[in-house]
Structures are given as C-alpha cells and as structure tokens.
C-alpha cells in the first residue's frame, strides 16, 4: 500500500467519525467538533489527491494546497460564527440544547 492510499483511507475514517458525531451527538458543540473532524477528513483526502496528481519531478500538485488553505480558513470562520451563536444561546437561555422546540408554535 502506498502512502497516498493510506492517507485516503485515513480520510475516509475521519469523514466517517465526523458523520457519526454529527448525527448522534446531541450537544451543538460536539456537533461542531464533529463537523471539524469531517472537514479535516476532506482536507486529508485533498492532500492525498494532490500527492497522487503530482507532475513529473514535483512532490505534489500545488493547486490543491492553495485551495486547501482557503478551505481551512472557511472552516475556521464557520466554526467561529457557530461558537458565537452558541455562546449567545447559552447566555440567553442558559441551555445549549437544539432539541426542545415548543410543541405547537414552531
């Protein structure tokens, strides 16, 4: 097994763990962490693909790396926005639950 395949398999595992967390973890913060794990999986996959797609004489295809940086910044911004909303939610309701919508007026 070459190194790209190993990384791609790791990526699959990370995406799987992230998806599992997003579905079953009730706490929003845990869901957010799960999203980050899943995102990391995608980034690792992109890195592995960059390695596989390298031109002759180069270590890796540089384009995915440029895109990756942007994607990481976007994921970071997403995390920051989510945490900010979550903090406001905790401030105003003293709970961090997504679940308990009122039974009727929703």
């Amino acid at each position, binding site marked *: 097994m070459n190194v790209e395949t190993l990384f791609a398999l790791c990526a699959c595992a990370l*995406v799987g763990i992230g998806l599992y967390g997003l579905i079953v973890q009730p706490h929003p913060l845990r869901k957010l962490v799960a999203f980050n794990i899943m*995102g990391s999986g995608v980034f690792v*996959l992109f890195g592995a693909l960059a390695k596989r797609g390298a031109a002759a004489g180069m270590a890796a295809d540089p384009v995915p790396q440029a895109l990756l940086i942007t994607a990481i910044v976007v994921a970071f*911004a*997403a995390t920051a926005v*989510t945490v900010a*909303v979550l903090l406001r939610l905790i401030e105003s309701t003293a709970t961090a639950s997504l679940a308990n919508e009122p039974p009727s007026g929703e």
Partner: protein
Amino acid sequence: MALSTGTHAGALLAAAVLLPFVGMLLGVLLGGRQVQRVALACMPLGLALALGITVAWLREGQTLVYLLGGWAPPLGIALRADGLAVAMLLAVAAVVCGIGMYARADFATPPDVRESRAAFSYWLLLMAVWGALNLVFVSGDLFTLYVALELLTFAGVPLVCLAGSGETLRAALRYMLFALCGSVLYLLGAVLLYGGYGTLDIPLLAGAVQPGAIARTALALMTAGLLAKTALFPLHIWLPPAHGGAPAAASAVLSALVIKGSWFLVLRLWLDVMPGVVTWASAQLLAGLGATAIVVGSVVALRQERLKLLVAYSTVAQIGYLFLMFPLAFDATGNVLVHGAASTGGLLQAVSHATAKAAMFMAAGLVYAALGHDRIADLAGIARALPVTVLAFVLAGIALMGVVPSGAYLAKKLLLDAADGSGQWWWTIVLQGGAAFTAAYVVLVLGSALRRRSAALMQVKRVSRLAEFAALLLAVGSLALALAALGPLPGHLVSNPLAPKELAMTLLVLVGGALLALGLSRAPLLAAPRPAAAAPAGRLRQAALALGIACEQADRLVRRWSFASIGLLTLAALFGALLLVGRAT
C-alpha cells in the same frame, strides 16, 4: 490569452461582486448611522451595474468573462455571466432595492442613539448577502462557488437571530450546523472531481467529465449537500423556525434570496457541469422531492395559526416548485440535460418567487407591526385598515399562483409545454395542483382579512407608507414579469388572458384553492353548515383534517435532527444509486 482579462465588459462582473462588499467594509469603518446611508447608496449603484451587465450581455450576445489578474483557467479564476447569471443578478439587485426601501422604517437608527446594534448588523448583512449572491451567480469554478456559498450562509445565519431571542438563536444554530453538513458534502464532491479531472473550472470540467464512478459519486454528494442548504423537503429542518422567527425585513432576504443561491448551484451542476451524467431516474427523484414539498409544505401552511409561519411554510412548498424543472429539461434523446424551455421556465419561476415572496413577507411584517400580532384568525378588519398591504399580499399570492398575467404563469406555461413534449403527464398534475394549493392559502388569509370589524375594537398602529409601497412594488413587479414574453421569450406562449380556456383554468385553480382552504384550515372558515347538508361535507372535512394532521406530524418527524441528518445521507446514496442505474427512457 495571458494578457487579456476576458471579454470587453467583463470588468463589470468584478464590480458587481465588489460593490456590496466595499459598501459593507465602508459601513464597518464609518459605523453608526452612516451604515444605512452607505447601504442605501449602494443599492441604486448596484442596480445600475446589473442593468449595465444586462445591456452588455445583450449587445455582445455571448457569455461575459472576466479573468482575475489576467490568468486563464485552469490555473486562473474566471468570472462568467451567461443568460442565467445575468437574469439572476438583475432580479436580486431589484429585490434588494425593494427590501432596502422596506427596511428603512424597520431598521432605522433612532435619532437619539448613536448606533443601534440591530440596524448596524442588518444593513451590513444585507450587503454581505447581496455580494455573496452575486459571486454565486458569476463564479466560473466549483471552488469559488463553494466559498461564495459559505459566505452566503455566514451572512444568512446572523440575519435569522437578529431579534436575539432564545428561539431565534436556536433556529440560527440549527440552520448553521445543518448547512455545514451540506457544505462538507459539497466540498467532498468538488475534491473528488479535482482528483478525477484535475480542474474545477466549469467549462473545462464539462468538457472532461465522463459518466463514471467519480462523477456519479461527486454529483450525488454535491446535490445532497446543496439540497440541505436549499431546504428542499425532507431537508427543511431549519427553514420554518428560521424564516418564521426572523424580523420581516430579514425573512424577506432569507426566503426570497438566500435559498436561491444553493438552488442556482444545483442548476449549474446539473445543466452546465454534468448534463451527461444526470439520469432520467435521478431527475425524477429530484422533482419527486419537489412534489412532496409542495403537498406537505402547503398543507402544513394551511394549518398554521400565524401569518409569518404560513408564509414560511409556503416557501417550503415553493422551493419544491423550483425543482420541478429538472426532469423536463432533458433533450429529445432523454440522456442529456439542455438549456431550453424548461430551464427558462425554472429561472422565471425563481425570479417570480424572489419578488413575490419578498413582498409577501413584507406584507406579513406590516400586518404584525400594525396589529401587534399576526394570528390569522384575528385579522378581521385589516383589509380596511391597511388596504395597500393587503393588496400587496394578494397580488404576491396571485403572482405565486401562476394565473394570468404573471411571470409565474409564463414559467408554468413553459414547464407545462415541456411536460407535454416529453410525455411526462404526471408533472402536469403537480404543476396545476401546486397552483391550487397556493390559491388556498391566499384565500385563507384573504377570507380572514376581509371580515368586518367595528372600528372601535381595532387598535391599528401606523405603518410606514414607504414600506407598504415597497411591498406593493415588488408584488406588481412579479406580475409584470409576464412582460418578459414581449422580449426574450417566444411570443406564442402568451395567450389572451380572457380566452375561455385560460379563464376556465384560472377559475379551476381558484375554486380548487378555495375548497382546499375550506377543507384543510385549522379553524372552520364558514359558520357550521346546516345539519342536512352536513353529513357528506362533514365526512370530507374529517378526512381533510386527518390529512392535515398527518402532514403536520410527518413534518415534525422529518424536522428532527436525527431524521434529517440520516435523510441527508440516504438521499446522497439514493442519488448515487439512481445515477448508476437510471438510464431508462
């Protein structure tokens, strides 16, 4: 090619994207009450830019291109504006101007305050949504589209929780987390495509892509992810509380504009990037979800007690409408999606919905502002107190129904023609039935609003005249889209609105709508019928009520987080399977 920066008028595209963002940054710098002034100054400028782009596109007769820094794809990034993009740019600019007019009253900074938080955020976020949408429309590659879509979400989420109550914050958080699920799936698909074909530029990718495992997996993942962001049933987990709870001026932005971004991207993917990968069966699934959205969304809308939630659920139904075009857009061989009557119809539908839904939310907001509540059962007398607002609501409803003369009528006509042409009669039923459902909730609201009430019992606050006229203007604009038939659309589509066939169809839709409203509304619309006539009617009403309750329960079930997230994955898998097997025409 290295030194040129694209077509002659390409720089206009960059300007259209930059203007709202520059306005936003300027607003942050100046702060205070200047934000509103900057935003309002940007609006006519942006509208002028959009008009300029339209004129340039018409004159050049080809896609406008702007190469950032003069670098051509695959290394560089191109902005492109084809007909779809130009139409959406123009529509969004017009709707933003209308919303700006409306929001002047709601989000004005009070004279004795230096800076009010809600107003400051609102105008900045409005600019951000506008800029992000423009970027979605003109992006030429899938990664820039990803970034644009994320910007759109980041601007949309705070709009949901502008009011700052626990309920809206929770809605915003649900929206954000679910949208993030969708965007990871989209990014995963884009990464797979890059791994397979070495480019994300749309024309280059369209030339290279082959119906194989990579393209099918990527398309399935990206489609499912985008549907989560568009809130197509059963992935509408976040939409009703978010759109129903936000202030009206924000709901109008969210409902009319924000969801169109990810819808537009599905359109791009299916028609421009992978028209040959898409299969007949997968398109049927997509439109089938749309049809379910129309039925469930409309029935639940009819059972709402509050006007704003009714309008929010009507958005759930109208999103379904936007996806009906996909199975109708196949070419004669049934293997490739093409731009044609169906895609034009879909686009027109989106533009009509953007204008009409913005008007509807504004009208609902004005009713709330005047009465201090928006309980549908207690709207009696409002038609007399706020005639312009109620007129705007009804005109917007007519525009959504697609009866003559309106933009949605032309759209429906185009889609009906396409359905006839390709022998898919079942979509004809859905298209006509959907119109009757829309008629139903307009009738429901109007029935309540037209009831009399003695003036002494009513306490109506004054509302801004300008806001009322902004709502009316957008509603009339949606109707006036029918004029598109004079220019870019084939003229034979416009039949005489007073021809017996058209009148009969309109009447049928209205009567169907009235019957649906009678049967499905929560509280009986009329006084109890006489016992002699009641027996059969009563049984029908019982059945309709049971259907309503069933739909409501189904809606509540699919909006549970576990159900929605598993549904998202299931849909991705289902699309993958149908892309693999479904070549059957």
